[in-house]
């Protein structure tokens, strides 16, 4: 199959509450997909299952042909699935630069060691520049504004050169400038590096402008699939 990510028959309940039932969906390589749905429809649960934070009760998740349903979050990151959090949990004691270095550390063997200050076009510096954080690289993460935290989430996710980005409401409650920058960043990642993404949002115009296909989730089921 030509699918990068595919989920089949995903079901999840918490106690007696059924959150998701029979979710089957897929993302093709390089495809920008949107996930839309009202509050309580199960978007975040689905994202958590696809990214490895939660185990599904039923169903399977496949990535690049391999079954990954039970792989944890960090293993999926190393495979090339990166996710961002709607509410970031920044490192209280690290700077922006250090936070990015942590994300890069995983793949350090794949590239030469960089000097650690983020200068001179090393991978750290690149990432910081792309996400507009270069000038704040020594700022402690805990002191970042919401917009900068989202940028940091982006930088962290992009650090592994992911094949698939799963973005959970990354554009919500952002200033116009931040939103413009980050949407440009996302488009560039998709266009230049062929990064597929699954964007969760409840902003229809944004989804339509960024995605080629939109899945609509309602009460734990995919009720509609629209091509843009």
């Amino acid at each position, binding site marked *: 199959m030509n699918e990068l990510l595919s989920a089949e028959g995903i079901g999840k309940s918490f106690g007696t509450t059924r959150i998701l039932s029979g979710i089957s969906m897929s993302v093709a390589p390089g495809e920008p997909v949107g996930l839309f749905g009202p509050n309580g429809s199960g978007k975040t649960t689905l994202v958590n299952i696809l*990214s490895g934070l939660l185990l599904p009760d039923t169903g399977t998740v496949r990535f690049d042909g391999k079954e990954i349903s039970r792989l*944890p*979050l*960090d*293993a999926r*990151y*190393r495979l090339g699935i*990166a*996710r961002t*959090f709607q*509410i*970031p*949990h*920044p*490192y*209280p*004691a*690290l*700077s922006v630069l*250090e*936070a990015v*270095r*942590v*994300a890069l*550390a*995983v*793949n*350090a063997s794949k590239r030469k060691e960089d000097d650690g200050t983020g200068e001179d076009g090393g991978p750290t510096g690149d990432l910081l520049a792309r996400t507009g954080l270069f000038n704040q690289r*020594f700022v*402690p*993460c*805990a*002191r970042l504004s919401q917009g900068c935290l989202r940028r940091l989430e982006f930088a*962290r*996710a992009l*650090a*592994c050169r992911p094949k698939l980005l799963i973005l959970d409401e990354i554009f919500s409650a952002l200033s116009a400038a931040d939103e413009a920058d980050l949407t440009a960043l996302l488009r560039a990642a998709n266009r230049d590096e062929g990064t597929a993404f699954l964007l969760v949002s409840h902003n229809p115009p944004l989804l339509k402008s960024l995605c080629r296909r939109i899945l609509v989730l309602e009460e734990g089921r995919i009720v509609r699939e629209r091509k843009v």
Partner: protein
Amino acid sequence: MRNAAPFRGGWPAAGIGLLLFFPLSSPDAFFLDVFTTGFLLAAFAASWDVVGGVSGQITLGHALPFGAAAYACALLTSLAGWPLPLAVAAAIVLAAAVGAGIGTLSAPLAGPFVALLTLALGEIAHEAAVGNTFFSGPGGYAWGGEGGIPLTLPWRDASPFLSYYAALAFLCLASFGMLRFSRSGAGLILRAVAGSPITAQASGIPIARFKRLAFTVGSAFAGAAGAGFALHVGRATATDLSLELSFQAATFAAVGGRGTIVAPVVAALVLHVLFQGLSLPPSARILLYALTLLVTLRFFPGGVVGTARDLASRIAGREGARPPGRHGRNRNGEVAR
């Protein structure tokens, strides 16, 4: 933001210089001994900081690798007749292995449960040591119990001067090693795991493996300190595995400032030399340690270093933006989440 500020270059050098010259002022052998044990305990405190400060894994059983190494030295030299250097090396390896075991067991657990598990493991070891009369050594005395097991040392009576300098050298070397580790790439990852495990996981870090690494490295250094302690005292005793000792390590780190490696060393030296130097009985000492800890936690949560940083930034006039303390609190004192 590096862990640099209050210990810019000069202070440690001055401190070490003072300590180097101290014995030359002909102090009482008692005080030399107090400092010697102080150096070893300071190294022990730093090793706690690797696990509980840098890596955020609160362990209340750090005496376990410390005492395990002490007992290993005793058993290997006195029972198995091993040469001392080999016994010490084996003891440190054992301590590291113990740490790896503790790390494996505690990796799936969150904060207070790690504390509980490590406390229980330490107490099991302590009870095993207290309750066990090992075998009869030469001379017919039973070994084990509270009195512990003697080491067979190649020297008869160590000179207090030599012990002092050897312990000081060990402290400097060990602290240097731990400091390098905490500032390495692995140390950065450990601090990330401590600060926000979920973000670290989402950055591809295998949390369990790094937690185990923290315990292994911290326990190895604890074992080195424990072996040194056994060498100095000439015995491995059950107090080397006690909850009170584990508690002291956490206290030293909290009072100094967790995560800095150096501050726990200084706090350990100051507190130990003070309390032991005043010849206070063990009960009173532990009581004072407990009081010191409670006062620190309540009024100076970042320890000496954290409080100094807060003061420094306030003096520097950045009133509106307090730098994050140990737990990344913002201006309103809320934890940054």
